[in-house]
């Protein structure tokens, strides 16, 4: 039998999709994503993450950063390592799953970004409730999504890759509607 090599591919072509009212929708490059599921005791995972990747274990709703690496709180008992391949020691402390091409990541950035997202998602997106560095698992136009605030005007939205085109469609339509209102 011939040997097969499977290569992860981004769900969407990378790059800027739309820019309106100074606000852009951009498909982010695919990065290595690993789900880390430690089970009832997350202690060993916290130690291994710090020792191997210089990352703390994020508290609910938050993100930890290190050089070239990021760790998201990703729901109950689940964390998402973004960037590096997980160090072998992590497998001792948690169940690891490669999620690299399972999610589509889109950046929504600009002065109207918050208003666009508010049309699609029930989160309180004001800075005092959802500050830069906050992350949430939530619903976006009926899709299960992960929303992370990357800056004062920036949001990274992730959905399952099967819904990637729908996400772009919804973001584009909401951005057009917000931009048509002009600057409020």
């Amino acid at each position, binding site marked *: 039998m011939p040997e097969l090599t499977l290569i992860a591919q981004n769900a969407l072509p990378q790059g800027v999709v739309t820019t309106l009212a100074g606000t852009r929708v951009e498909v982010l490059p695919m990065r290595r994503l690993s789900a880390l599921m430690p089970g009832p005791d997350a202690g060993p995972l916290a130690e291994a993450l710090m020792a191997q990747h210089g990352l703390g274990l994020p508290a*609910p*709703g938050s993100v930890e950063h290190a050089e070239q690496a990021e760790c998201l709180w990703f*729901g*109950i008992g*689940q964390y998402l390592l973004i960037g590096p391949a997980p160090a072998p020691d992590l497998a001792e402390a948690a169940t690891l799953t490669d999620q690299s091409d399972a999610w589509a990541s889109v950046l929504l950035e600009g002065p109207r970004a918050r208003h666009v997202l508010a049309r699609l998602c*029930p*989160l*309180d997106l004001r800075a005092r409730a959802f500050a830069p560095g906050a992350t*949430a*698992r*939530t*619903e976006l136009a009926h899709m*299960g*999504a992960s929303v992370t605030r990357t800056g004062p005007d920036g949001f990274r939205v992730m959905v399952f890759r099967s819904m990637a085109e729908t996400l772009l469609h919804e973001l584009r339509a909401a951005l057009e509607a917000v931009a048509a209102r002009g600057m409020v």
Partner: protein
Amino acid sequence: MRLTCPLCGERDLREFTYRGAALTRPEGETWGDDWHDYIHLRDNPAGENREYWAHSTGCAAVLLVTRDTRTHEVLGSALAKGGGA
């Protein structure tokens, strides 16, 4: 209605799925009135009710929520894991 998730904070109802009344499961495997009650009979209280809600499009935790059915006021919510303590 909004529900408070112990992990995510106050969230919109559309992120949650109702998972039924929180009941005490009878002991033993012999059919009797207690099992009949547990499986088939439900109170329909006008007032405080204990029920399970899954935070399905949120953090995926199952919550034990105490709610007033007349006002939708949420009187308490905790992770169902560990008995809702």
